[in-house]
């Protein structure tokens, strides 16, 4: 839809630049917003990687995410390892299409969480860059530096924010942001202090962006690359983080049975291994909180009876009604015959091996909605359901 919007504004899609999240593994593992079973989803992703490499070379079609994995309760080492394992699986997917790793790997980027354990997080980011470069060079045969670079976005940990004494969340976010900067993040999102309760208010969102600006413009923390490299403590933690991640990679590869990371990741999704590991870690964290071995200000230490009241943003039901009206008007104004033909062509292509991005763009040009496009594919591919486990 974005490509078609560009066309309508007279922009050649070849000149577009940007990043799409796309990663599907973390949906099954953590965020739980899947649509289809993993295999057809991977076909769509491979089609997207292939199409973008040929048509919009500057665009990064896939950001491999660990953020959601961490927010679902994983440890730092699990976030690191599960995410990079997903990255390796996508590299294997691209190679299975005959794509050159030096051509498509620069289009991969990453997205990590910055939790509140300051040095552990810095070590995690440093370990991620080391592991990625090594594996891309030694395991997947990348020859260019660009194909070995791990570029990443970071968001501060929503899960570290507390509903109790919420003003303290500004402090947590600032510390997490600093860890991300010192760890070498390429871009950063700072959470607003009230996101523990609702979408952010204007005031809270402003403090969040000012936190980044103070960090960027006043502290000088971003002036040099890897400022903590060589610190005995940070190097030791980075090595330990790498060691833990490598042990997890080995486990995942074994799980697949065919020696590939892709096979292992798919198997771990199907048999609930990833979700089980995360649930274990989340339960252990909760127990540590309840025993008091892990402290959180306002929750189990420095507790106050009357927490500060916040003015939170409320979204009116009117928004939904307005959107429904806009959608109905669009549907009424389009050529239904063209929509049906485009969706039928998409369904036909999905039954074969053709790249699905061109027929999908045709459907969008005909003003098919996201729901209709997904619905067409869902009729063919069915929906994924997760076996409930706790």
């Amino acid at each position, binding site marked *: 839809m974005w490509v078609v919007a560009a066309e309508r504004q007279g922009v050649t899609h070849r000149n577009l630049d940007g990043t799409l999240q796309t990663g599907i593994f973390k949906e099954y593992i953590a965020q739980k917003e899947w649509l289809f079973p993993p295999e057809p989803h991977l076909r769509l992703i491979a089609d997207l990687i292939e199409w973008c490499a040929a048509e919009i070379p500057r665009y990064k079609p896939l950001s491999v995410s660990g953020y959601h994995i961490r927010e679902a309760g994983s440890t730092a080492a699990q976030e690191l390892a599960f995410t990079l394992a997903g990255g390796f699986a996508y590299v294997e997917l691209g190679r299975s299409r005959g794509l050159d790793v030096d051509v498509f790997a620069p289009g991969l980027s990453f997205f990590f969480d910055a939790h509140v354990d300051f040095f552990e997080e810095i070590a995690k980011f440093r370990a991620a860059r080391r592991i990625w470069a090594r594996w891309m060079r030694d395991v997947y045969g990348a020859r260019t530096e660009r194909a070995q670079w791990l570029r990443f976005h970071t968001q501060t940990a929503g*899960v570290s924010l507390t509903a109790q004494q919420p003003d303290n969340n500004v402090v947590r976010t600032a510390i997490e942001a600093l860890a991300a900067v010192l760890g070498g993040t390429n871009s950063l999102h700072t959470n607003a202090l009230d996101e523990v309760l609702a979408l952010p208010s204007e005031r809270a969102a402003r403090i969040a962006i000012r936190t980044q600006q103070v960090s960027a413009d006043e502290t000088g923390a971003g002036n040099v690359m890897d400022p903590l490299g060589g610190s005995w403590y940070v190097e030791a933690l980075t090595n330990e983080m790498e060691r833990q991640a490598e042990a997890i990679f080995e486990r995942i590869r074994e799980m697949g049975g065919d020696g590939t990371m892709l096979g292992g990741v798919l198997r771990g999704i199907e048999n609930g291994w990833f979700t089980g590991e995360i649930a274990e870690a989340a339960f252990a964290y909760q127990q540590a909180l309840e025993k008091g071995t892990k402290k959180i200000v306002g929750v189990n230490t420095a507790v106050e009876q009357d927490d500060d009241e916040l003015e939170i943003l409320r979204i009116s039901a009117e928004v939904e009604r307005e959107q429904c009206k806009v959608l109905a008007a669009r549907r009424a104004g389009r050529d239904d015959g063209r929509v049906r033909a485009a969706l039928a062509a998409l369904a036909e292509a999905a039954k074969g091996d053709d790249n699905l991005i061109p027929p999908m763009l045709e459907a969008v040009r005909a003003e098919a909605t996201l729901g209709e496009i997904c619905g067409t594919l869902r009729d063919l591919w069915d929906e994924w359901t997760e076996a409930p486990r*706790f």
Partner: protein
Amino acid sequence: MTDDTIERGTIRVVVAKAGLDGHDRGVKIVARALRDAGVEVIYMGLHQTPEQIVQAAIQEDADAVGVSILSGAHMTPRIVELLRARGAEDMLVFGGGIIPREDIPKLKALGVAELFTPGASTGAIVEWLRSSMRASAS
């Protein structure tokens, strides 16, 4: 009655996530804590409709229904209405998630027995369930 007389499996609770909200970290922790405390937990998992949850609760003859909502869509407690419509209004409905403080009395007035918000301990949830069961048994 003391805690000791609440034997394993004598409290049966259906636990679920409603709607498209995929935040299941908390609900799994609560389900496990309840199980560890001797409660029989039927965890339905994600993407359940109020109708499915009520159907399961009635079929399982549950004592209580626990729902986790972190999507903001908590102000229409359809589960309470459906239970009432099927004559199962004695089944306790409790919930947890990101519920603004001022919404809690409104939800209780609509028939929700208790709500647990961020920072609630699993111990407090277990204790609440036990004492509610004692109250309804006596």
